[in-house]
C-alpha cells in the first residue's frame, strides 16, 4: 500500500501543476494586440452553423490585419469551441475573459449557448456580440447592458413574411418548426404577429434536427390544405422538408426563415424540389442583383467573392451574421480611438449608426441592441436553381 501512497502523491502534484499550467499559460505575442474572444459551436449539434461563422470572422480579421490592424494595432482572435453545450460555453467564456483578457466576446452561435454567459459578462463588464437569434438575448434591454446580437429579431423576420403573405393574399397558414430553440422562438414570434394581422394558423407541426423523413408531418398539413407553409428550422433537415414537400406533389407556397439558409440549401434539397421555394433572409445571396444605390451592394459582393475564394463553399446568411458581429466589434474599437477598453467598446457599440453589414444596416441605440429593421429582411425565391428577389 506504501507504493500507492507515493504514486497518489505524485499524481495529485501533477494534477495541480497542469491545472496551474493551463490556467496561466497566456501565450505572449510580440507587440500589443486587441484580443477578441470567439465562443462558437465548432462541434456537436449546431456545428453546421458554427464552422462557417468562424471562417467569416477569421476572414474579416485577416483582412483588417493585412491593412495594419486598427490604428496600427493588429487584432488577435482567441477562438474556442463550446461543443454546442452551454456548460462549455460558460467555461470557455470565463477562460477568454479572465485568462486571455479579451476586450470583447463574439459568441454563442445559438440561444442556449448564449444565455448562460449573459449574467457572467454583465457582472464582469465585458461586451458580447451574440450570433444567437432568440429575442431573449437582447431583451429586456435594461438587463442586457453588455449584450448585443446581429441576427434579425424573429419579429422582423415574421413581419416581413406576414407582409409578404398579405401581399399575396394568403390567409390560412401551416407552421412547421424544428424542436430546437431557433424553431421555438420563431414559432412564438410568428404566432403573436399572425394573430394581429388576421392570418390564421390552421396546422402546427414539429420535427427534429436529426430526422430523416418529414412526410408524415407534411401529409398532416396537406390534409388541412393551407394557402402557405412556413418552415422555421436550421439545416440539414430544413432542406429534407423541401424535398419531402416536392415528393408529396404539394403546391402551396413554401416559405423558410433565415436560419434555414445553409449555402448548400438548393442542392441538398434537390434542384427541382427547391424551385419556387421562398426564404425570408438577408441579401447575401442576391448581392449581384441589388441595384447599385443599395448600400449593402458593395459590401456583399466583396464578402461573397472573398468568402468563396478562401473557403471554396458558397456563402449563407448564417455566416453573414457572424461577419457582421466582427464588423461591429472592430468598428467599436476603431471608434474608441486611443484608449480602447471594454467599457469604451460597449459605449461605442451602442453609438454605431448606419453600419452596412451582410444582414442589414445596423443602427444601434441604448434601447435596441440589434439595430436592424424589418426592411433588412427581404423575401427571396429560387428561380431556375438560383436565389433571386421574389416579385
Amino acid at each position, binding site marked *: 500500500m506504501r507504493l500507492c501512497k507515493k504514486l497518489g502523491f505524485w499524481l495529485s502534484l501533477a494534477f495541480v501543476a497542469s491545472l496551474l499550467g493551463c490556467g496561466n499559460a497566456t501565450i505572449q505575442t510580440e507587440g500589443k494586440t486587441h484580443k477578441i474572444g470567439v465562443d462558437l459551436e465548432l462541434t456537436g*449539434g449546431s*456545428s*453546421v452553423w458554427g464552422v462557417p461563422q468562424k471562417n467569416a470572422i477569421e476572414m474579416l480579421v485577416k483582412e483588417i490585419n493585412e491593412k495594419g490592424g486598427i490604428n496600427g494595432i493588429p487584432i488577435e482572435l482567441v477562438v474556442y469551441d463550446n461543443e454546442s453545450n452551454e456548460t462549455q460555453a460558460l467555461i470557455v467564456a470565463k477562460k477568454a475573459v479572465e485568462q486571455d483578457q479579451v476586450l470583447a466576446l463574439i459568441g454563442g452561435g445559438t440561444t442556449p449557448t448564449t444565455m448562460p454567459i449573459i449574467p457572467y459578462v454583465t457582472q464582469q463588464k465585458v461586451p458580447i456580440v451574440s450570433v444567437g437569434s432568440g429575442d431573449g438575448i437582447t431583451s429586456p434591454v435594461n438587463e442586457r447592458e453588455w449584450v448585443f446580437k446581429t441576427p434579425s429579431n424573429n419579429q422582423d423576420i415574421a413581419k416581413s413574411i406576414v407582409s409578404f403573405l398579405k401581399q399575396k393574399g394568403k390567409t390560412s397558414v401551416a407552421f412547421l418548426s424544428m424542436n430546437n430553440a431557433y424553431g421555438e422562438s420563431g414559432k412564438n414570434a410568428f404566432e403573436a404577429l399572425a394573430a394581429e394581422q388576421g392570418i390564421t394558423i390552421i396546422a402546427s407541426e414539429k420535427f427534429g434536427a436529426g430526422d*430523416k423523413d418529414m412526410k*408524415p408531418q407534411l401529409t*398532416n398539413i396537406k390534409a388541412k390544405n393551407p394557402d402557405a407553409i412556413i418552415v422555421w428550422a436550421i439545416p440539414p433537415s430544413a432542406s*429534407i422538408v423541401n424535398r419531402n414537400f416536392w415528393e408529396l406533389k404539394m403546391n402551396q407556397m413554401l416559405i423558410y426563415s433565415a436560419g434555414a439558409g445553409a449555402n*448548400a440549401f438548393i442542392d*441538398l434539397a434537390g434542384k427541382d424540389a427547391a424551385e419556387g421555394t421562398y426564404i425570408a433572409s438577408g441579401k447575401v445571396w442576391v448581392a449581384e442583383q441589388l441595384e447599385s444605390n443599395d448600400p449593402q451592394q458593395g459590401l456583399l459582393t466583396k464578402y461573397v467573392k472573398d468568402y468563396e475564394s478562401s473557403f471554396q463553399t458558397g456563402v449563407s446568411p448564417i455566416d453573414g451574421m457572424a461577419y457582421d458581429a466582427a464588423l461591429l466589434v472592430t468598428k467599436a474599437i476603431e471608434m474608441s480611438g486611443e484608449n480602447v477598453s471594454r467599457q469604451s467598446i460597449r459605449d461605442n457599440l451602442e453609438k454605431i449608426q448606419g453600419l452596412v453589414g451582410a444582414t442589414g444596416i445596423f443602427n444601434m441605440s441604448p434601447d435596441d441592441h440589434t439595430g436592424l429593421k424589418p426592411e433588412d429582411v427581404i423575401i427571396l425565391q429560387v428561380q431556375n436553381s438560383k436565389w433571386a428577389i421574389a416579385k
Partner: protein
Amino acid sequence: MSGADLIQLIVSGLTVGGIYALISVGFVTIYNVNGVINFAQGEFVMVGAMSAASLVSAGCPLWLACIISILVAAAIGAIVQKIALHPARFSSEVVLIIITIGISTALRGIAQITFGSNPLTLPAFLAGEPVRLLGAYVPRQDFFIVGITVITMVLLYLFFEKTMTGSALRACMMNREVSRLVGISPNRMALLAFGLGAALAGIVGVSIAPVSLATYDMGMMIGLKGFVAATIGGLVNIPGAVIGGLLLGLAESLGAGLISSGYKDAIAFLILLLVLVFRPQGIVGAKSGKRV
C-alpha cells in the same frame, strides 16, 4: 385524414421500416455471434453514407462509389472487432457495451475530421418525378430503398440457408461451444459476423444518403432506432429483426402523423421500454430464460 393520406403514412412508414430492418439485421447477426450489442452500428451507417458522398463528389461513378463504401464499412467493422472487441471477448456484456460506445464516439470524431461537418448528399439512383401509388406519392428513391432491402434479405437468406459458411455462422449463433466440435472457429466467425453487420450498415448508409443527407453525427440516432427494432424483433433471429424494423417504421410514421410529430422519437423509445419490460424475448422470439 383521408384514405390517401393514411396510405401515404403507411408507405413512408414501410420505407423507413425497411431501413430500420436492415440495420437491425446487422445488430442481430453481431449480437448472436459476438454476444455484443453494437452501439457503433449507427456509425457504420454514417461511414457508408459519408464515404459514398465524398467519393461521388470527387468524381467517382455512383455505383462504384457505393460498392467501395460498403467494403470500407465492412473493413472498418472487421478492424474494430480485431483490435477492440477480440481482446475483450471474455469480459461481461456491460463492458462490451461500453467498448462499443467508445468506438462509436471515436468514429464520430474521425469522421468529422476526414469528412468535415457540412452535410453531404448523394445523387439518387432512381431520379425523376415521384410516382402516384394508390393515391399516395412515392419518390423513386423509396422504391430503390425497398428494392435494396428485399434484394439484401434474399441474398442473406441464400447465404445463411444455402452456403456451408452460412449454416456454420448460424450454428455458432445457436451454440458457440458445440460449434467448435464441428470444426467452426468462433473467433473467425465473430470477425465475419462483425464485418457482415458493418457491410449491412454500409448498404443502409448508401441507400438513405440521397434521401436523408449524410452528416458526421447522423449515426447516433439511426443506430439507436436500429437497436429498438432489433429488440422488438427479439434479438434472436433474422426474420424477427426484419419484422421488428417494419413495425417500428410504421409505428413512428403513424405516431407522427396521427398523434404528435414532436413525440415521434419518444414513441419509438416508449415501445422499446414496453417490449423490454413485458415481452423481453420480443414479439417473434421464443421464450428463452437467458434474457431475464
